[in-house]
C-alpha cells in the first residue's frame, strides 16, 4: 500500500544543466519553416510527422521563460505568418483552422515572458490583440469557449477545453503583469473563480480537475491579493499535485512497481506544485504549506532530472529528452523544463 517514497538528491546546478539539456533539445528540433520537432521514437530513429499548434505555442512559452530568446524568436516566425485578424483582436490560427483559446493563451504567455526577460516591447501590440481574442472568448460567468470558428466567423458555444481555460487565465494574469492597470486582472480573476467554483460541474467532470495552468495564474496574481476562494483553490491544487508527487516517488517502473510517467506528466505536477509554492511565499494564508511544498518540489525535481537522457548521449534527438515507451514529444521537454524552472527557485 505504501512503497517507500524515493526522492533522489538534486542540486541547483544539476537542475540548471537539465534545463539547458531540455531547451537544447527543443531548439535543435527547429525546422526551416519555424516549427519544431514534434516527436521522436528512439528505437526506430523516427521523427513524428504530426504537429500541434497549441504545443508549438507551449514551446515558445517555455523557451522565452527560460531566456532562450533566439530559439523562441525562430519559432515565432511560424506564428507570425499564421495570424488571423478580426475586429479588434488577433488570433494564432493557421489558414482554414479554428482559432483555439489554449494555443493563444500560451502564445500570450510566451510574448509576456519575452517582454519580461528581454524588456523588448516590439510584440506588445500583438500580445494585447491576442489578449482581446481571449477576452472575447471569455463568457460573463468566467468560462472560456475553446474555439472561434473560421467557417461561421463566430465563437463556438458549448465547447470547452480541458486546459484552455486555465491557459487563458494564466495569459490574463501575465498580461496584467506586463501591462498593469489595463484590466487584465479582472478577466484573470473571473476565469479563476469559475475554475475554482463551477468548471467541474458545468463542463461535466465527475471529479474535481487539477489544473497546473491555474496554479501558474494564481502565482502571478498572488502579489495583488487573492480572494479567499482563490486561496482555498490554491490549497486544493497543492494537495492534488503533492499527492501526485508522492505517488510518482513511490513508483520506479520495475515490474512489480509500475505506473511511471512521461516527461510531460512529471513536468505538469512539478509545474503546478512550484507555482503554488510562489503563492505560498507571497500569501500568509498558505504559509503552513511552504515546508511541505519545498520537500515535494525537491523530490519531483530529483526524479525529473534523474529520468532525463544525459548530455553525454550521442543521439542529438534523444539527448536532454524524457522518453516514455521509447517516445518523446515536444511537450515532454516543455513541461519538464517548466517544473525545473520552478524548482530552481526552491533548491539551493
Amino acid at each position: 500500500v505504501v512503497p517507500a517514497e524515493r526522492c533522489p538528491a538534486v542540486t541547483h546546478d544539476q537542475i540548471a544543466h537539465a534545463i539547458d539539456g531540455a531547451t537544447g533539445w527543443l531548439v535543435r528540433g527547429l525546422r526551416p519553416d519555424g516549427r519544431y520537432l514534434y516527436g521522436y521514437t528512439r528505437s526506430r530513429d523516427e521523427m513524428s510527422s504530426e504537429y500541434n499548434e497549441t504545443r508549438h505555442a507551449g514551446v515558445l512559452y517555455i523557451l522565452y521563460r527560460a531566456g532562450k530568446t533566439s530559439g523562441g524568436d525562430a519559432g515565432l516566425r511560424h506564428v507570425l505568418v499564421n495570424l488571423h485578424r478580426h475586429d479588434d483582436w488577433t488570433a494564432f490560427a493557421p489558414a482554414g483552422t479554428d482559432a483555439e483559446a489554449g494555443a493563444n493563451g500560451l502564445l500570450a504567455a510566451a510574448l509576456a515572458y519575452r517582454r519580461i526577460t528581454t524588456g523588448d516591447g516590439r510584440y506588445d501590440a500583438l500580445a494585447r490583440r491576442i489578449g482581446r481574442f481571449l477576452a472575447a472568448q471569455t463568457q460573463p460567468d468566467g468560462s472560456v469557449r475553446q474555439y472561434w470558428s473560421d467557417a461561421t466567423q463566430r465563437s463556438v458555444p458549448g465547447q470547452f477545453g480541458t486546459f484552455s481555460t486555465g491557459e487563458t487565465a494564466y495569459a490574463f494574469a501575465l498580461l496584467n503583469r506586463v501591462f498593469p492597470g489595463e484590466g487584465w486582472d479582472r478577466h484573470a480573476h473571473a476565469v479563476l473563480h469559475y475554475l475554482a467554483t463551477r468548471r467541474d460541474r458545468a463542463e461535466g467532470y465527475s471529479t474535481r480537475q487539477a489544473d497546473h495552468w491555474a496554479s501558474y495564474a494564481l502565482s502571478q496574481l498572488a502579489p495583488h491579493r487573492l480572494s479567499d476562494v482563490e486561496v482555498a483553490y490554491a490549497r486544493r491544487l497543492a494537495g492534488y499535485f503533492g499527492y501526485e508527487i508522492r505517488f510518482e516517488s513511490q513508483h520506479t517502473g520495475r515490474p512489480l512497481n509500475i505506473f511511471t510517467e512521461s516527461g510531460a506528466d512529471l513536468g505538469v505536477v512539478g509545474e503546478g506544485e512550484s507555482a503554488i509554492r510562489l503563492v505560498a511565499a507571497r500569501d500568509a494564508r498558505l504559509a503552513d504549506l511552504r515546508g511541505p511544498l519545498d520537500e515535494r518540489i525537491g523530490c519531483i525535481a530529483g526524479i525529473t532530472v534523474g529520468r532525463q537522457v544525459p548530455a553525454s548521449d550521442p543521439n542529438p534527438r534523444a539527448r536532454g529528452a524524457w522518453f516514455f515507451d521509447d517516445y518523446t514529444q515536444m511537450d515532454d521537454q516543455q513541461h519538464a523544463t517548466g517544473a525545473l524552472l520552478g524548482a530552481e527557485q526552491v533548491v539551493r
Partner: protein
Amino acid sequence: MSFAFMVAAFLGTANAGRVALAVVATRPSPRVFAAALAAAAAVVVAAMVLAGSLLDWLSISPPSFRLAAGIVLLVAGLRTFVWPFETPGPFAAVLITPELVALALSFGADESTGRALAALVPALVAVLPAYRARRRDTGAIAARFLAALTIVAGVTLGVWGIRDV
C-alpha cells in the same frame, strides 16, 4: 486535524463493543483483561512515540501513511461491521489490532505525542466497562456502531491523505 476526530477515531478502532463480545465468549480473568489493556496501551503509545522515526526510516511521508492507515481502517471497519464476533487467539488480540496500531502510527506522525495520547485516553476508558459485559446481542450492536465509526474515520483519513501536500 481536530481533537474530536482523533478521539472518535480511537473510540471506533479500539471498539469496546467487540471487546465486550470477546469477554462474553472467553470470560477472561481480571488479570488477563488488565494485561491485555496494558499491552494494548503500551503498543499504541510506542507506535505514537516512534511513528516519526519509523516513517522516516521507511521513507514514507505522513500523508502517504495516513492514506494507507485510512485503507486499513476502512477494511477492518467493514469486516467488523459484517462480522463483529471474535476470532480465535489470545484475548489481547482483540485490542492490539492492525487498525489501532496503524491509526496510532498515523496520529503519532501527524500530531504531537501529547495530543495523540490525550485522544487515546477516552477510548481506553470506554473499553473498561466491557469487562462487565454479559450479553452478546448488545455487544454486537455496539461493535457494529463503532465499526461504522471506524469506516467513517478511515474514509476521512484517506481523503485527507490524498488532499494533503
